[in-house]
């Protein structure tokens, strides 16, 4: 069972939902796939078990063999190689690690070396098995690291995924193969606009989904109306609560600040199970 938590707009409460859900359903694992700005560990406070570096293969050119024919820069779709007279320039941050240059080089002058793009940390906090990725600063591409985090996950364990915000490649990498996705939003024009985009994305990916409305009393009714029209269930409404916002600011999970919420999150989980 894989449940991902996503949202078009950032800062709507993805991490709040992911961490509190994980803390309310007994044994499970939480994967923080927002590798650009991971925050779940702040609330889960896992004990670190191990960490490892995650890398991508990038080309290295053997000057002795290279004939400067230019084939590699011609085949690279990501402009990661340039052949300028008797010099091959490799722009490592642009390389997607596809292997085209090394495989297609006519004189076998290119081999591949590993380049670190981030680290992955694995830990445990009570019943929650925890994995997250931390992308190296100045690194452009997060999907390979997200993939690595997902590959590290235990099979056959209830899995909660905290996805990055947005609707493009990093989010797709995080939510694909989920059994269910919860979209967190807020009842504001920005929240609605970005919810609609996220819904379109999940429909393309054919992942079943529902909505959780956070700070449900701060704005207008347009999100409710939209969900009703589109027949999207709203599984939970979390009102704006200054006490909870303050707990959040200190890194204290909801269910610790107000234990009565634990049951609500467990119910949320059971509702999801029923829908899958």
């Amino acid at each position: 069972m894989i449940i991902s938590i996503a949202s078009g707009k950032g800062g709507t409460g993805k991490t709040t939902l992911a961490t509190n859900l994980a803390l309310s359903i007994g044994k499970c694992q939480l994967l923080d796939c927002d590798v650009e700005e991971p925050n779940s560990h702040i609330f889960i406070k896992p004990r670190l078990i191990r960490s490892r570096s995650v890398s991508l293969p990038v080309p290295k050119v053997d000057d002795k063999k290279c004939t400067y024919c230019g084939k590699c820069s011609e085949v690279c779709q990501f402009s990661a190689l340039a052949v300028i007279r008797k010099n091959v320039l490799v722009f490592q941050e642009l390389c997607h690690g596809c292997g085209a240059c090394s495989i297609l080089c006519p004189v076998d002058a290119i081999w591949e070396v590993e380049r670190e793009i981030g680290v992955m940390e694995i830990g445990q906090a009570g019943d929650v098995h925890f994995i997250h990725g931390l992308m190296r600063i100045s690194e452009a591409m997060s999907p390979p690291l997200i993939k690595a985090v997902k590959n590290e996950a235990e099979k056959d364990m209830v899995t909660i995924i905290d996805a990055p915000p947005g609707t493009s490649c990093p989010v797709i990498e995080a939510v694909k193969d989920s059994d269910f996705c919860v979209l967190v939003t807020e009842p504001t024009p920005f929240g609605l606009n970005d919810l609609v985009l996220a819904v379109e994305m999940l429909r393309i990916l054919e992942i079943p989904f529902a909505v959780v409305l956070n700070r449900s009393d701060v704005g207008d009714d347009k999100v409710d109306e939209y969900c009703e029209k589109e027949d999207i269930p709203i599984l939970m409404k979390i009102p704006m609560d200054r006490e909870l916002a303050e707990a959040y600011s200190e890194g204290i999970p909801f269910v610790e600040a107000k234990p009565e919420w634990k049951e609500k999150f467990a119910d949320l989980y059971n509702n999801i199970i029923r829908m899958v």
Partner: protein
Amino acid sequence: MKSITVISGKGGTGKTILTASFAALAESKVMADCDVDAADLHLILKPEILKEEVFLGGQAAKIDKSKCIECDRCLDECRFDAISENFVVDPIDCEGCALCYHVCPVEAIEMIHSKQGRCYISKTRHGHMVHAKLGIAEENSGKLVALVRKHAREIAERENIEYVIVDGPPGIGCPVISAITGASLVLAVTEPTVSGLHDLKRVVGLANHFGIKALVCVNKHDLNPAYTRQIELHCQEVDAEFVGKISFDTVITKAMLNAQSVVEYQPDSSVSEQIKSIWQRVDEVARTLP
């Protein structure tokens, strides 16, 4: 012409709200919404589209079944598991690297550009605005961001406009790097929470890495004064100037519901005063930069 990019690391800290107010406060500017993934600035600025451009970004492989001899070469080489056992490419998994296209012995594979988005040049009550819409489930937002920036720059240069003000995307990855490229300075908006500080450190680290001057402001500062203080201290450590704070106030949401920036909706509110003072400082610093 100078370019100011508003970023945040963590999403939802109030980046767009602040940028929209800058649109009203700056005298001579072009606005650029570089959060092409989840663009929101248009909801406040209500642009009227003058020009539209289709953006062709990445590509995906397509296998012509009538030519395919099922030799398995493409399947073996593709590192993104994008080709199924029955030789169909999943356009979502496909990275567009074209390796399969090159290794196919019978030229059965074609690389197809999908329409990836649109870029718009518009006019608003606050002057020109360049914005975009990325195709859903598409990649390459970095390139679309670069296109938005380029159009905004061109307008500013042509019309002798002082500022390009960029609403940047959240995170620290490719679209953010693209949005801060060429910026005279970045303004990072954060909130006084453990998460906000954690993410601020990374995004200021990114600006430092590229040698771009970073200014910092805190939204909802009174939610946790102790963390606001910590953020100020962190700014001193990393040599990022702290330029102001904004109170936790419902006027911000009310302005948004009214499709207005805060400084238009309630120009005399204390939040508006705070935003004005932040803009004043940003403007002063920008003038000292080359």
